[in-house]
């Protein structure tokens, strides 16, 4: 279970940066590509914005694991030293 405030903030970032329509429901399980239809350049913008706004540095290995909203939240938590669950 992800902290709800973090989840809300990440979802807001996704909606703003990737211009996901308000009519599309975004949950912890939503996949960036398959469910939300986010393309590569929007993903780049999203990851860079997340890095800046949450003061985290995502390395190559972590980026490879980021498939869902939940995995992104978990990566942020892990950098902040906060348990995601």
């Amino acid at each position: 279970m992800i902290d709800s405030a973090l989840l809300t903030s990440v979802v807001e970032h996704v909606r703003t940066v990737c211009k996901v329509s308000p009519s599309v429901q975004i949950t912890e399980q939503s996949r960036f590509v398959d469910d939300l239809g986010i393309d590569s350049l929007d993903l780049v913008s999203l990851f860079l914005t997340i890095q800046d706004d949450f003061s985290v540095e995502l390395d190559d290995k972590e980026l490879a694991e980021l498939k869902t909203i939940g995995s992104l939240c978990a990566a942020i938590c892990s950098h902040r030293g906060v348990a995601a669950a």
Partner: protein
Amino acid sequence: MHRRAMKYRRIVLHSLFPVLRQFPADTAARMVSRIGQLEYALVPSLRQRFHQTLNRVAEHLQADWDIDQVGRELAGNQVRWRARDILLDGRGQDAIDRVIHAEGVEHLQKAYDDQRGVILLGNHFGAHLMPAHWAVRKGYPLRLFMERPHHVSRILSSEFDTDGPMGQRDLFISRKADPADSARSVMRAARVLKAGYMIFIAGDVRWTDKHTVAIDFLGRPYRISTTWVALAALSGAAVVPTFCRMNRDGTHDLSFLPPYHVAARAMTQGHAGPLVHRLFAEIERRIKIDPASSNDYFFWSEHDDPAYARNRLSDWPPANLPDEGRYAA
């Protein structure tokens, strides 16, 4: 040309390379051109195809070309273009300098000296891999951001297997990669640029996603990738456009244009369209002057590229694309 004929020609070419490399590089390039010119002379259907296409483009550009002469030279240059930089293998720097006449090097050097990375913006006009070959020979730390080119010189391919955070191996991209993989590649390339490296990328890649820019090129509509604009915006690296003309005598005129920077918010503020249009206006201008260096631009068709055709035939524009996500053409 028929795929099987292309395959045979490639086999013949590759078996000839060791022999051709015994000749001076410009002589070898002229000999390779002769192969294409011979095909042009011997195959009526090829000649007819060239004539039809050249007439169409000449009319569009209002160019006063000698269609048959341009066709013959273009057929020769197409084979030379497909030889990439292989004919330069095993040659010393003096030999390279004799066949590649570089101008505007001061622009490249100035951009490189700023230590913010350089996007060497290539295209498929003329000898498209020569800028990369030249840069590697001159000792610039160069990486390619494109699909891994095959059948290239040993000096270039030896660069391709470098590993590590700034290595080339992980920078090659694939048209089949999913968006998440592509995003990682772009971020990796941005890191390489921020470390002061030079990234060679083609600015004339046909693509289909919402970040593409619609252009009219040689009288036909296409959609073009803006990855290079995004990379320039993300990294703050200077963009140095480069062109490499193939001369009849087997030499090359390599030119580097003055560097420029792309605004950090270029992708969201609609700058990608004008930048892509400016690049294609320059390519078209050069084609009008030197149509024989246009390689396969005249024959661009969505049917030549299965990935492009597949995407283009799918839902375009995507139904859920908001208006503000559309970039001005």
